[in-house]
């Protein structure tokens, strides 16, 4: 029978004065902790109002799911099992030890003084409690050791070298010190706890039930084996008691100012993350009351939303965004990690928040004397604040983003980089900081509705060579409204694929039509380049045209167009069911409306377009199509939602990319070329077709790989009759690939 003697003394050997001192220290540490958390909360209160909650029911669902994700460490384990397992060990070890301490507090400070008859810290409870805490404490220490080994190996994602500033002007040693301090402090906390336990067991001469504190038991045995007697263990135990207590209380005080704050901020940030982050950008009016000087976008710190401010405090510098980012990979001056950390440090410095162990820059970018990147204070600026967009975060950095969403997808703590970047781009455009390429594209889009500088009336010229004309959806009811998009309409290489789409749809008996010259660019890239006024113009025009046509649903070949029609047009009065053509093709092949006449007996790889795989989460349909036409699909290492951007999104396609070390598209072609026996690089996005057609030539892989659109393989598989004018080529992959090869 387990009696009341199966327990341990709580303040063993501590005098009354010692106990009082302990509680004074607890109060002090807790006060510092609360002040620190309060300072952080006041930082978020400075943020702009932004509705990230939405409907309470759906928020509750999202929050519940996020809480489960957090509990299971799902986002940490994604594509990194090692980190996931050992992070979970540390996290649950810490949580259980914290709960254990809280239980002790309830026993010693509430139950015993007020209702001693309900005392529970003895007997079976004590044994189970001891066992659980010992095992979880051990798990935490194992986790810490594993993570320390990982960190010591300096994997690429934990390399803090900046991509945009010369190493000589910046010292990020503070970051590394902070990381090791956090990890090391936890380790010391755990180790002192176990040594305390071991010496206590030894000093009490091995009470039998303490075998259920197995780690402490082994330590006691070890100390005994090396000759330590129960009497000589007592002073060590006494020192350890105070040592462990003081270390724990210092940790509590340091908590809100250290990396440890992520344990509080991140579950909240994960719960607050929006399923539409980046997919649906905020309309201008929702950004709260207009600033006095009428500026647009995120120009200053005070323009950041409260969610964006929690974002920057949530970052653990894990570097997953950094290694996923195509800008980093291609040598552009943007790292999503550094962008977030820069804003964190700038806001902490500007609002006098104590944030020890950060980056020191000799270019005066942070909090220093204010003459560094500062530009003239505009009207309506609050004192001491300096320009964020185009200042601390340079225009080149902001323009480097392809909005591929890899950072948001990779981030284990729910940081939404892309909306913040686009917000700052809006400010750049508002300040007139626009590169010549963008200016040309914007001007053309404003006047002609396309970025090709061609007359809007020429938009449907690609249909001229079609044997069967396409229905004008403005004049006739259709089932499917095909929103063609800019690149599919005007780019000569893509036009071949566009015509094939039309003919495959026709041969499948689909009832579809297009808007002809009534269509303008859907504006997805314009919006992501920060030209919100122009985007509004385009969206309003297209919604007007669409509202006059009668159709049931929309299909498009362009994932960018798909995104904005599906997720963003509802904010402009157009709520549609939108399909990607790969989904339509998969359905047509499934239903038998399209019949495979011959198998595509080729080994192919498929490149997931960012806006399809990440934004719209369509990854199965194009693979189903490839399977249905008999192609032998080999996956690249980065596929599905983990796809790698071609470098064209977010308005990058209109800007100069000659300064890049190696274009993302070229890196992607090398990735595909490394797959044994693969002859075809298949995409399902007009921009991809142009980007990779160029990249396969630039890298000299055009002998080995043929870049083709999904439709080109489908057209061949269904044996489309090529009765087009003979001069037109056949739009086949072979023709296109050999077109650029000069004789000799």
């Amino acid at each position, binding site marked *: 029978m387990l009696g009341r003697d199966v327990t341990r003394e709580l303040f063993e050997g501590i005098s009354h004065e010692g106990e009082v001192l302990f509680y004074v220290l607890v109060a002090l540490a807790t006060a510092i902790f609360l002040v620190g958390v309060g300072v952080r909360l006041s930082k978020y209160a400075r943020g702009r109002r932004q509705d990230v909650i939405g409907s309470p029911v759906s928020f509750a669902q999202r929050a519940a799911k996020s809480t489960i994700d957090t509990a299971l460490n799902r986002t940490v384990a994604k594509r990194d099992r090692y980190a996931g397992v050992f992070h979970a060990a540390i996290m649950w070890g810490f949580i259980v030890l914290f709960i254990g301490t809280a239980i002790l507090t309830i026993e010693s400070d509430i139950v015993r003084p007020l209702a001693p008859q309900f005392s529970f810290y003895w007997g079976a409870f004590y044994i189970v409690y001891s066992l659980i805490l010992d095992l979880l404490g051990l798990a935490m220490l194992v986790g810490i050791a594993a993570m320390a080994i990982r960190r010591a190996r300096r994997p690429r994602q934990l390399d803090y070298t900046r991509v945009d500033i010369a190493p000589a002007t910046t010292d990020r040693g503070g970051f590394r010190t902070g990381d090791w301090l956090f990890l090391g402090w936890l380790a010391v906390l755990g180790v002192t706890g176990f040594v305390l336990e071991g010496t206590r067991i030894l000093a009490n001469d091995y009470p039998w039930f303490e075998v259920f504190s197995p780690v402490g038991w082994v330590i006691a045995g070890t100390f005994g084996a090396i000759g330590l007697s129960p009497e000589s263990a007592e002073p060590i135990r006494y020192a350890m008691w105070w040592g462990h207590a003081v270390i724990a209380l210092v940790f509590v005080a340091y908590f809100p100012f250290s990396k440890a704050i992520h344990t509080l901020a991140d579950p909240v940030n994960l719960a607050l993350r929006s399923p539409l982050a980046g997919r649906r950008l905020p309309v*201008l009016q929702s950004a709260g009351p207009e600033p006095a000087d*009428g500026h*647009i976008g995120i120009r200053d710190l005070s323009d950041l939303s409260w969610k964006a401010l929690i974002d920057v405090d949530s970052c653990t510098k894990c570097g997953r965004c950094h290694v996923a980012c195509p800008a980093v990979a291609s040598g552009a001056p943007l790292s999503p990690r550094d962008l977030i950390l820069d804003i964190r440090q700038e806001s902490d410095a500007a609002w006098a928040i104590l944030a020890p162990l950060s980056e020191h820059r000799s270019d005066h970018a942070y909090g220093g004397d204010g003459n560094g990147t500062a530009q003239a204070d505009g009207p309506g600026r609050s004192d001491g604040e300096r320009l964020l967009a185009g200042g601390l975060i340079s225009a080149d950095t902001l323009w480097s983003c392809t909005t591929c969403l890899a950072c948001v997808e990779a981030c284990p703590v729910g940081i939404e980089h892309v909306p913040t970047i686009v917000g700052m781009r809006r400010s750049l*455009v*508002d300040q*007139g900081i*626009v590169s*010549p390429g*963008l*200016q040309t594209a*914007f001007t*053309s889009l*404003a*006047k*002609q509705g396309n970025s090709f*500088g*061609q*007359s809007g*009336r020429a938009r449907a010229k690609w249909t001229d*060579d079609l044997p069967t004309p396409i229905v004008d959806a403005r004049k006739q009811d259709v089932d499917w409204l095909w929103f063609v998009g800019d690149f599919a309409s005007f780019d*000569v290489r893509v036009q071949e694929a566009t015509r094939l789409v039309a003919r495959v749809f026709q041969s499948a008996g689909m009832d579809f039509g297009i808007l002809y010259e009534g269509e303008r660019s859907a504006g997805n890239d314009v919006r992501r380049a920060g*030209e*919100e*006024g*122009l985007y*509004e*113009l385009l969206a309003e025009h297209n919604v007007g045209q669409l509202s006059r046509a009668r159709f049931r649903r929309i299909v498009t070949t362009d994932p960018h167009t798909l995104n904005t029609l599906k997720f963003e047009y509802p904010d402009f009065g157009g709520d549609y069911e939108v399909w990607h053509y790969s989904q339509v093709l998969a359905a047509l092949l499934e239903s038998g409306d399209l019949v495979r006449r011959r198998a595509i007996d080729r080994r192919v790889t498929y490149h997931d377009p960012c806006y399809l795989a990440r934004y719209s989460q369509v990854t199965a349909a194009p693979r189903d199509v490839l399977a249905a036409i008999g192609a032998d699909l080999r996956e690249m290492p980065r596929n599905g939602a983990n796809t790698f951007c071609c470098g064209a999104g977010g308005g990058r396609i209109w800007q100069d990319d000659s300064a890049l070390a190696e274009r993302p598209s070229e890196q992607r072609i090398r990735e595909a070329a490394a797959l044994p026996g693969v002859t075809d690089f298949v995409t399902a996005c007009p921009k991809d077709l142009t980007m990779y057609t160029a990249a396969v030539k630039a890298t000299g892989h055009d002998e080995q790989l043929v870049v083709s659109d999904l439709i080109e393989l489908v057209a061949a598989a269904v044996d489309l009759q090529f009765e087009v004018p003979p*001069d*037109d*080529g056949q739009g086949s992959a072979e*023709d296109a690939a050999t*077109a650029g090869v*000069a004789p*000799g």
Partner: protein
Amino acid sequence: MDYVVLLKQVPDLAEELEIDSAGTGLDREWMSYVASEWDEYALEEALQLREANGGTVTCLALGVATGDVDEVLATCLARGADRVVKVGSFDESPDSHAAAAAFAEALEPIPHDLILTGVQAIDDLDGQVGPLLAARRGMPHLSVVTHIAVSGDGRSVTAHQEYAGGVVGEFEVDLPAVLGVQSSREAPRYAPVSRVRQLLKTATIETVDVAGGGPRSGLVVESMSVPETGAAAEMIAGNAQAIAERIAELLAERGITGGAAR
């Protein structure tokens, strides 16, 4: 220092131009309009000069029914002009004499030290508005200028004219004066569409009536036509693929690519 910029709209060349049934002008049905490129240089110069020396920039455009003058003027405001004025009311773009007369009258109450306009426009290649205006107001005038700088005392400007053979002439012109701008030191700045749209709704575009009349140029367009293709030229037809092949063939025939490849 008060700067005044004169602007006009011209047909947008991205659209295919067609000649009307009378054969004396452009078919306006499908035409779209953009601000004249040289006038945009003039505005950019004015804004740059204001940034360097202080002062105000006022933009004037004739109130022509074709095109969208309000948008041109709102764009000026979006780029940073202080004040915009729509001058008179015309059914179509008047000739240089009438335009200069209208501007001269409108300028009466508007403070002006330096008047800048594009040196010419693609739709008339006349280049006379500046000189005619200067004559009417009794001011000095200089055309085809670049590198405008205001003197220390603010009573004159210097400007460059670039001649053939890389020779540059520098002129000093007493103010007030009229300059015909050839190009600006930087490309014309971007006017964000959201600003333009907001300004179209909220900004005041002043209008002034002008009496009009006075002498006209007396020039009449007898007929307008697209230049005929000369017999010596070969027009390459077909799709991009065919055109590219034909060009490659021609280059090879003439030994242009062959030589370069080796």
